[in-house]
């Protein structure tokens, strides 16, 4: 089976995110009331797996491999079966 996986890798809270700050100030200058803006990465990929839970496990391992535990956290945001 093929599954589409979405992973989010983000900075732990409390760690200074200058990019988030920059975005926030841009948004404020555009009159948007946005607070605590944080910028992270999203990874989309197609995984080969026997079933959804196996795909989720693989996605989890991949997140573990790619995120840096010193300052990042990751979540498997979504697993969708592909036709």
């Amino acid at each position, binding site marked *: 089976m093929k599954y589409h996986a979405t992973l989010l890798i983000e900075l732990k809270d409390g*760690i*200074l995110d*200058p990019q988030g700050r920059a975005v926030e100030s841009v948004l404020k200058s555009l009159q948007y009331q946005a607070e605590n803006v944080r910028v992270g990465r999203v990874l989309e990929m197609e995984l080969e797996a026997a079933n959804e839970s196996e795909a989720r496990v693989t996605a989890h391992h991949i997140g573990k*491999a*790619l995120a*840096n535990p*010193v*300052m990042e956290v990751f979540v498997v945001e979504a697993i969708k079966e592909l036709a």
Partner: protein
Amino acid sequence: MKVAVIQFPGSNCDQDAVWALQQVGLKAELVWHTATKLEGFQAALLPGGFSYGDYLRAGALAKFSPVMQEVRRMAERGNPVVGICNGFQVLTEAGLLPGALLANTNLHFTCKEVFLRVERTDLPFTAGYKPGQVLKIPIAHGEGRYYADSETLERLEQNNQVVFRYAPDPSPNPSVGEGFNPNGSLNHIAGIANEAGNVLGMMPHPERAVESALGSADGLPFFTSLKQALEVVA
């Protein structure tokens, strides 16, 4: 004595490192990142550059290169292992050094001369310097903001594992005015060592400062120190 200069796809200061090592009479060879042996080498240098394009995160993908297992063994055996710029990022990503290197607070790549205070002169890389000596060495990076959680940071300071710190320009008419810490590193950290003191990582480029014709020779003692250290073991 031979130093292995590890060549990751995307490394671009590898030849510069070889050149600098040769300037002090050390033998240096490029070793491709797929190597599974580092026999015959007494030290390893992970050079600057953009390994794997620095995609995802500087050093994030290079840590998976097969050669890293050998580098780890070398470090455990107590041989000198140096990571410069991208090499430092790889060493932290691989867990051979504590902490991490985040995007500069100015959010862009910055290439300029900075000043470093030498905090330790009892290491194979710094024996040639005077304690507290201030060096002029260039930086060239976009992700050099040293970060570690407060406990780790304390431990680093207590074991004085901080080897280089960004410092103000000592000259009478300073060129480095606005903030001498170029990237927002905690405690102005520019370079650290592991507890044993044989693994060192630093963001500035000593290999770019080995000839006064190119602006500074303050990086030369870094390599002569390494040479002497290796001669002692040999």
